[in-house]
């Protein structure tokens, strides 16, 4: 499935901050979507919370900088960071090159699996993105 030219894999969850969330055996893998990396632009700096950091959904788990914009990365789910990807902090452009693969950011042990219900599936995320892009008319 794709919104315009962007890939949205079916087997992942998504949130409104352009994170993808992949369920694995005892943890979830988190990264930003193709749409998210494209919107951010060439990523120059990426800072991620180290293993052991406990976060609640919506709390900061890192920061990302492209050009002159610093974005905050906020946890899509509550839990403990089990691992952050050292390859992307060393070479953040990996996220631009392979957002759903080598560009993963954080592995999280979930605190509350019920929070998965707050996330979107691929079709919902696509519809939400379409709605966002359509609503950019009239300023006030």
């Amino acid at each position, binding site marked *: 499935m794709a919104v315009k030219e962007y890939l949205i894999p079916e087997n992942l969850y998504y949130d409104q901050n352009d994170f993808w969330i992949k369920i694995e055996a005892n943890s979830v893998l988190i990264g930003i979507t193709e749409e998210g990396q494209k*919107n*951010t*632009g*060439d990523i*120059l*700096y*990426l*800072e991620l919370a180290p293993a052991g950091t406990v976060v609640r959904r919506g709390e900061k788990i890192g*920061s990302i*900088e*492209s*050009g*002159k*914009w*610093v*974005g*905050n990365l*906020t946890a899509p789910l509550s839990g403990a960071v089990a691992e952050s990807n050292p390859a992307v*902090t*060393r*070479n*953040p*452009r990996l996220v631009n090159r392979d957002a759903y693969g080598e560009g993963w950011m954080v592995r999280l042990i979930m605190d509350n699996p019920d929070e998965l219900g707050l996330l979107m599936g691929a079709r919902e995320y696509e519809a939400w993105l379409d709605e*966002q*892009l359509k*609503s*950019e*008319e*009239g*300023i*006030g």
Partner: protein
Amino acid sequence: MKANWRLLDTGSLPAAHNMALDRVVLNARNSELIPNTLRYLQFSPQCVLIGYHQAVELEVEEEYCRKHGIEINRRITGGGNLYWDEGQLGWEIFALKNTPGIPRRLEDMYRLMCESVVNGLDKLGVKARFRPANDIEVQGRKISGTGGTEWGDAFLYQGTLLTDFDVDTMIKSLKLPLKKLEDKQVESFKERVVSLKEVLGYLPPLPEIKAALAQGIAEVLGVTLQPGDLTPAEKSDLERQLPLFQSDDWIRGLRVLPQENDLGVAEYKTRGGLIRASLRLDPNRQHIKSAFITGDFFAYPERSIMDMEAMLKNSSSRPEDVGRNIREFFADNQIHIPNVGAEDIIQVLCLAIAEAGERSAVS
């Protein structure tokens, strides 16, 4: 009906106060304690500001700053090192991301914000334009650099406006892609920026500049600006946040990410003349931090070299990416440099990148 935004003029402040206020107002907007806000930013004393992820020792001539009473601080926004003297004016827009008409796509948002300032400059008789990714320029020369950040549902987008600018102090206080401060290079570097005073031949009074910017921004964003002050909640949050922004923990960034600042310089002789490239590089991140291209060739239009430098800033330093970017730049822009082609520029840039690599391998 037009939405009411607050027009906030906090006057001249020390760097730590201004940096703390950026966070305070952004937090207040995210918490919906204040309306969308346009703030004017002025500094006293003069200061050097680095971007959120930068390292002071790689970006600032610390000894020069110390000797000349130039404060050093860190922004909450991204981008590079900046020198602010007391004559410069900054502008900042704090708004909710879902404000109707604010584009979700960052590059569209940058354009809208910059075009609102371009409209303000037009009121002063300055024909400026937006230059992607996020500069405002007059005939190829930068008059305003911009950057931003977000917190929760709110964002901050800010820019400088060079009113009457002391380029010599800027060159001495920042680490720039100048190997030696040779007169010819310094003169050429000065051509990259321009001030309001230089464009107009005089400097309008500051209140006039502020009024023009406010009018231009309000027209493009379709809003009404109502002068206002910091709220009691913002003032009390400022008191709470200020010690952090005055601390070495913040300025020196104890957790600054590993990074480098190598200088790569190369010259390449072509049939059209000598081309000299001077690049600031972060080799591990494969990142060109800034570029400065000079020589005795002639480029038409003259601005094309400055546009090329703007395109190279923050781009990849991998040779294959440099090649693609330069070829695309030549294809997309009507550039004519007699007897110098895209491949010549690629060659000198790759030589400068290799030179930096060899030097860092030796050291």
